[in-house]
């Protein structure tokens, strides 16, 4: 039976159905890095939906559906780009908040504008606030941007952990992509080298992350603005001898 909290419980709102317990439609890793005077970000276009069993209302963790054209990176204002992994509907909610924020910022019409640092900190406040209410926005966000020649790259998690770095990743990207970036990232990457590095990371994620989809987008943020390139696929190689008979060396019946 689903846990029913008494009405006057201190643990958040009235009943469980109003609190986020688990995400339904999720996107996987986002990887981003600084290069020269700009930022590059990559994310695949996959979203996968969790199936639900009807007994006990507990989720079964098998994939029910895959969406293949989910845009998980969006430009924010003039200077920033936001990439998200995790619950897609929460990402859309965040985009609504940010839309309103940028709208009011533009309405001042006074030559000042919110830069990536301000947006990053605003998001941190929002995520942390929701976490405190036990109703998190189930996302890991990457916020990158360039303003007045200064590049900025930061990340916020669903519990409000935030920091800035030269290269960041969410989810599986932290385990699979970051080690590559730590080895091979350096201060003066060119655009081509940056893309090659990101593709290397995305390829590893494609091979090893079961929720990855072979359709990725690369986004570039410069002083002039944000460009999100058309989606494309990575070449993969499946003819490795180990793949041909994967169970060859395994002991046991499966």
């Amino acid at each position, binding site marked *: 039976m689903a846990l029913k909290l008494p009405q006057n419980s201190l643990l958040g709102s009235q009943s469980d159905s109003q609190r986020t317990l688990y995400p339904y439609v999720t996107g996987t890793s986002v990887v981003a890095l600084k290069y020269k005077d700009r930022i590059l970000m990559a994310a695949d276009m996959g979203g996968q939906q969790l199936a639900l069993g009807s007994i006990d209302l507990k989720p079964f963790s098998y994939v029910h559906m895959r969406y293949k054209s989910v845009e998980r990176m969006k430009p924010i204002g003039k200077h920033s780009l936001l990439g998200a992994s995790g619950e897609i509907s929460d990402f859309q909610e965040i985009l609504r908040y940010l839309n309103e924020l940028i709208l009011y910022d533009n309405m001042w019409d*006074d030559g*000042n504008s919110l830069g990536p*640092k*301000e947006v990053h900190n605003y998001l941190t406040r929002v995520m942390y606030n929701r976490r405190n209410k036990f109703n998190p926005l189930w996302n890991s966000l990457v916020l990158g941007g360039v303003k007045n020649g200064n590049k900025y790259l930061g990340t916020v998690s669903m519990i409000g952990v935030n920091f800035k770095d030269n290269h960041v990743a969410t989810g599986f990207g932290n385990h699979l992509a970051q080690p590559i970036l730590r080895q091979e990232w350096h201060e003066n990457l060119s655009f081509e080298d940056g893309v090659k590095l990101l593709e290397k990371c995305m390829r590893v994620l494609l091979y090893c992350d079961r929720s990855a989809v072979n359709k990725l987008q690369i986004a570039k943020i410069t002083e002039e603005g944000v460009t999100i390139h058309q989606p494309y696929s990575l070449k993969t190689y499946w003819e490795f001898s180990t793949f041909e008979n994967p169970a060859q060396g395994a002991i046991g019946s499966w």
Partner: protein
Amino acid sequence: MFRNQYDTDVTTWSPAGRLFQVEYAMEAVKQGSAAIGLRSKTHVVLGCVNKANSELSSHQKKIFKVDDHIGVAIAGLTADGRVLSRYMRNECINYSFTYESPLPVGRLVVQLADKAQVCTQRSWKRPYGVGLLVAGLDESGAHLYYNCPSGNYFEYQAFAIGSRSQAAKTYLERRFESFRDTTRDNLVKDALMAIRETLQGETLKSSVCTVAVVGVGEPFHVLDQGTVQQMIDAFEIVAEQEGPAAEPDVDSGQEASAEPEPEQGAAAGEGVAPMDI
């Protein structure tokens, strides 16, 4: 200004289209002791005349730090000024907390002006009786604004408010073209000279004035009395000195040609309206 039948409520228009209560509020500003502000491309200086009630008391605080990059000098009802400073500090701190970035001065000034406007359109309120010179720094450079009780605000290169501010304004009008590119120290010197103009004959000493600076790489702070007195002495500003009418030289310190005058015992509180205290 004479009493008339349209001046009882702030929500009553006169047939000539004036709101007398708002205009009376601006009178209160004119009665307060002087405050001046001037800016260059990189710095803004605020100065004010501080007259103590009696020898026994301390002076009114008229310059407030609002944030590291914003400060304000007031003239008029200082209690109203204090309350508005608290509002400004609050706004700055909330913005800093959310965005980790300093609140742009222009936005704070508009919020302040909107707050003042509310009081000109509610029958149960009265306008704030204080004029504010807001000095601040943001991405677009150094700024000096004047906020009126009427809810208007203006940006200035240099301005003076309060009693005998016209003398200071005349001085500033003569000199303002040189302010943009001048050095920080020269800017402070100009501020002191403008304050001297409002004293109308009294000796300029650090005990009667307060000076504050904000600039690139320099958070807003009030200069301490020792520093101010040193600057006054260094520029050799003398009470009865005839200021050179033609080109004042910006770079070199002014040579005082007059001999030091005997100390003039200016009556304390002369020309200062009760509302200033």
